[in-house]
């Protein structure tokens, strides 16, 4: 289960990096750029949420096992 989530996280990270590099490339159309930006923000929000989840999980595990 955890492994699958981690893969998802990695995949999302990869997607986000691709979006940034596409945006940084010259000649990206603005419609496409806005679309990508929207997608990128959504991805980064999800990634942050996932990271928070990891953090909470670690805290809980540490507390439970103290």
């Amino acid at each position, binding site marked *: 289960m955890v492994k699958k989530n981690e893969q998802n996280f990695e995949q999302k*990270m990869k997607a*986000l*990096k691709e*979006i*940034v590099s596409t*945006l*940084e490339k010259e000649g*990206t159309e*603005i419609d496409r*750029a*806005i679309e*990508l*930006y929207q997608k*990128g*923000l959504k991805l*980064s929000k999800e*990634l*942050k949420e996932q*990271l928070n989840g*990891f*953090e909470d999980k*670690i805290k809980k*595990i*540490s507390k439970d*096992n103290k």
Partner: protein
Amino acid sequence: MNQLTVTTLVRYLKNKIDLDPNLQRIKVNGEISNFHKHFTGHLYFSLKDETSSINCVMFKTSASLLKFEPKNGDKVILSANTSIFESTGQLQLYVTKIELDGQGDLYQQYEILKKRLENNGIFNDEHKITLKKEYIENVAVLVGDNSAAMSDIKTTFSRRWPICNVDYYPVLVQGKDAPKQIISQLQKVDKLGYDAIILARGGGSFEDLFCFNDEELVMTIYSLNTYIITGIGHEQDFTLCDFVADKRAATPTASVELITPNLKDVKETINESAALIKNNVHKLITTLQLNFDLYSEKLSNFNSEINKYNTIIDSLKNKMLNSVNKIILQNKSDIKRFATLLEAYSYQNTLKRGYSLVKQNNDVIKSSKKIKKDVFEVIFYDGKIKAKGV
């Protein structure tokens, strides 16, 4: 007739006897009576037979070499010198050695039987059983009823291993009827499932212990299924039963000591084991603690990994925002450029038709009233000139 003093007479007799080779370095056999051991270590007794008796003395130096304790009734052969004790005028034997009479024969019998049994492999180790239990539970003891050996055995059991069940089977331990009785008791207890049998007897002369050299008894012990230990006589006594038994102890007390653990030792072992267990558990906990610390560190590393990702995501977000802003800016400036162009194209065609455009300070002058008396621009479709109002 000569008149003599007592001293002279006694001295004369003493000399006569001392110098008579038939009375010196002689061997005399008889039975000991009136035995008395003086506190100085000298032995005083009488040697008698059916009709006569003679006083005997054995000085400490010779007595200390004796291999047994002489007692009244012992049939013995004395090595002695004859002499007279001057103070009392008494004739006595000065004993240098005492041997038990009859031992010679018995000892020969013993040696012959021992040799034969030995040659038949009866004493071989491969026939011996080992005691299977470290903490023995049931023991049968064959010993003389109310004997010192029995009380020694009881004391030793209660001192060392009181939780053991001990059953006593009193038997004769001396004389010609003893072997038969011991054999029948051994055969009985062998079927009762004891962990061990003790066959014991206190100290005694070679003759006293001779019943333990009985061939039938030896063969019975040989064929026992139960572990048997003997504790017969003292350290120096070896009977044929000792040779055939699974184990030989020097004394009745030692026979118990050899098959029982010492309660004190067992308690100590238990305490030591408990301490060891406690120690090991402590060690284990410490190891686990160390492991935990290690994992905790790894976990906090993992936390910093999360922070790293957070930073990366933030920077990617910034990059995105920058890029998007740049693209928007680019588009804005494009739009502006296109607007200017469009504007330009919108009046160019009018100018071609013969109109011109007046501009002053970059403003298009739409009314003559708006023009200032200064230099202004007139723009034609193919160029522009500067002019001045008149």
